[in-house]
């Protein structure tokens, strides 16, 4: 189908539908034949979409929104790793305070310290992978996720730094 005709047919759909499927639908129309059957099918479907609009599901969300990007493993894993570290550190502080009334400091680095170091280090290549992949595709949500990852990392390091653990 000719591009101008594909664009016109796509414009028959409601704006919300076009926002979600418009570009890929138009690209598909351009690949296919511009015969009467295709036109009638597309126009009929556009009319149906106006009368019975598709609701819920991904129609409500942009695949490149902050929420959608945040659901990627490379986005949430570093945050989860930092939060695990934070819980470990705060848990250690809590246990120390409950048992001896003061923060316990190991002279030797124990297993918790090693787990902390591993989790905080292993997330670096994951964050780098996320930045390389997503900053180009969806800059604004990616920057938000990176800020969250950085915030979680700093929150985990803060008690260690300020309390000299």
């Amino acid at each position, binding site marked *: 189908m000719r591009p101008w005709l594909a664009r016109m047919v796509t414009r028959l759909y409601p704006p919300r539908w076009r926002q979600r499927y418009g570009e890929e*639908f138009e690209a598909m*129309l351009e690949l296919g034949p511009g015969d009467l059957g295709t036109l009638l099918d597309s126009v009929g479907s556009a009319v149906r979409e106006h009368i019975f609009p598709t609701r819920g599901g991904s129609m409500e969300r942009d695949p490149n929104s902050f929420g959608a990007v945040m659901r990627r493993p490379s986005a949430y894993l570093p945050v989860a790793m930092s939060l695990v570290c934070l819980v470990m550190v705060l848990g250690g502080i809590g246990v120390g305070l409950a048992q001896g009334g003061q923060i316990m400091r190991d002279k030797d680095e124990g297993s918790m310290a090693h787990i902390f170091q591993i989790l905080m280090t292993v997330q670096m290549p994951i964050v780098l992978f996320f930045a390389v992949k997503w900053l180009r595709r969806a800059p604004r949500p990616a920057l938000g996720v990176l800020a969250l990852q950085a915030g979680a990392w700093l929150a985990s390091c803060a008690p260690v730094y300020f309390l000299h653990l």
Partner: protein
Amino acid sequence: MGHYSDPPLLVLASLASGPKHGHAMIEDIARLCGSRLGPGTLYGAIARLEQQGWIEPLEPEERRRPYRITAAGLRVLRAKLTTLHQFTTAGLGRLEPL
């Protein structure tokens, strides 16, 4: 008669062999059962299936976006095809004596 037409089921069956974008789905479905879905019909089915969580979009490839079937979609497809299989087996069984 002659062509099977249940667009959502055809889309699920097409995606069972791997992720595809719209045009590839149309071609695959035409090979699979002889029905050539119109673009509007196809995207109507895609929107409903996505809404139900039976398929999900992947990252766009230029202007085209591939879709893949989800675990829930596979369960639905298996259940529907099993029902159809039972139906066709029973129907063909009734034809045998004729």
